């Protein structure tokens, strides 16, 4: 059985919480790095946690086309495919 987008979204939100220092509400359209104003090193930290949580490797080129929570859900969905 496949994991639903909603489940992935919730899990990502949980992982993102500690980087979300200003407690900005997370929605599908939240731009992960710019809306939360986290720098590139912290983004890498977060991505590592996502990779570890799902045991996947997200290629860099894919990352450069990923902005929003919705984008990232899609990436995770296709990587765990």
């Amino acid at each position, binding site marked *: 059985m496949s994991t639903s987008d909603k489940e992935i979204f919730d899990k990502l939100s949980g992982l993102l919480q500690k980087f979300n220092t200003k407690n900005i509400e997370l929605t599908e359209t939240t731009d992960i790095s*710019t*809306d939360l104003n986290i720098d590139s*090193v912290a983004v890498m930290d977060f991505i590592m946690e996502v990779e570890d949580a799902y045991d996947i490797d997200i290629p860099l080129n894919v990352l450069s086309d990923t902005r929003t929570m919705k984008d990232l859900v899609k990436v995770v969905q296709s990587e765990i495919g």
Partner: protein
Amino acid sequence: MTQAEQKELKKTPRWTSGMNQIAGEFSTLTDGLDYAAHGDTGLNFYAPRGALEHVLPYRDLREKARSTGRKLLRAGLRGGERVAIVAETGPDFVITFFACQYAGLIPCPVPYAMNMGGHDAYVLRIEGMLNAADASAVIGPDLSKEAISEAAARTNTRMVLTHTSLQELDEDGELAPFNSDDVAYIQYSSGSTSAPKGVLISQKAATTNTRMILQHGLKVTTDDRAFSWLPLYHDMGLVGFLLSPMMAQTTVDYLATPAFARRPALWLKLMSDNRSTVCYAPSFGYDLASRRVSAAASDLDLSSWRIAGIGGDMVRPDVLHNFIERLGVAGFKSTAFNPSYGMAESTLAVTFAPLEDEIIIDVIDRAQMKETGKAHAASEIDKRNAPEKVRSFVACGLSMPDHEIVVRDDAGTILADREIGHVLIKGPSLMTGYYLNDNATNEIMGDDGFMDTGDMGYMLNGQIVLTGRAKDLILHNGRNIWPQDLEWAAEQLSDLKDGDVAAFGIEDEVGEEHVTVLVQCRFADPARREHVRHEVSMLVHRAAGVECNIVLVPTRSLPFTSSGKLSRAGAKEKFLSGEIAPLEMDTPHLVAVG
């Protein structure tokens, strides 16, 4: 890769028994590789989670580079043409770089996309680089094809290849390796995204500088095994940890930069596993790793690590101190730290601290430095009791044989020890010039052969101490950030126009720079102000991937020079003194730092 293949993968040895080490006595890069190919040493690439992924002995590298060189000729490239190569840390880039050396083509290593959501900014960057080198071809991994094609379509670059499509070609034509009077490669190191400058390095500069690094700086031996996570499109990665080790037949183990960024502690684990002896990183790399290593430090063995070089940013004493505290238990020696100074315009290396010496930290009096431009040693009382009155700088070492380093005042007079001025260098490692950019070359190259580095500093018993940048560069996490890039990104916003934005770094008490962006805003409505702030934050973030403090300021508050250029230094000074006051905002986190 199947499990069986993975099992067969065996990393290259530290040294080839019976082989005589020749440390950099070659007249071209291909001469160096031809010799290294006689042994069993070479390059090993680790995957993001620490598994050995590719092994490329120098012997195979030479063979594949020669074959790929003939494929480049088959593709229609001709001697002297520029070939941009996406420098991912892996065999494909390295093979193609040396293929160019054998085919007489000029390789230009370019970065890969790294920032989240950074696609557009990346394409723009590559476009600028292709233009600066007037590149005929751009080659990258399959996944980068879309982005590099997009960039090439906006330039005169006629050929886009992936490593896969290149390897599918037949071999053709005669290899014509560069000789000792020829060029070697183009390195992008300076200039903003839209107008990058390509540093043209000759075979003579490359072979001289690598020889200096090997013989004078590192005093390399057959017991050495190098480790690197530095990007291969930077001088420290390319020259320090690909060309130099190859020119001494030394084995290198690599972890790709993004893999390091995600798992900094893996760096130390792999160095421990390999008993690595030489590795360089900017201060922030040591900072990241020591924060992440946690309790596992005692399981590591870093006692073989004899040179822990520091370069690429201002050396921060507090970071080095923390690293020693955390990693001493793993056998890391404080004398391994080696502050060094370098830049792409000098191929790489300019100065090295003497090996096995403790770091020299010069504590000076802040007020006197500001008033007199001299770095007077602080009093013992202030050092102990008044940390706010002193400033610590690290001595970055001595010049190399046949090379010179001097500090001069604005009028060009050579200054005495402890007098702060412009740092200039001279010697056979210097670049030929900025490719196709005589104006930029003439700006820094003097008739007397000295090149202005753009850095400020002072001499201390023959060692150079750097105090900052003369230009407006922002140093953040080991990266050079051009303020123009941030300003242009912000000015994309339709509410803003040219000259409305000033970006600069503000140093905190430990010397870490924080990016501050002042934005002139003409709106009185709080909601519109917040909108501008948010949009600017997003644009800047997307362009540079850095956390920054966006501060809205009144219109006509930013200062300009007499020639009508934005004065960033002036804006920073007025901001810090309070003369430029931030506009009132609704949200509390916009309070200015400083």
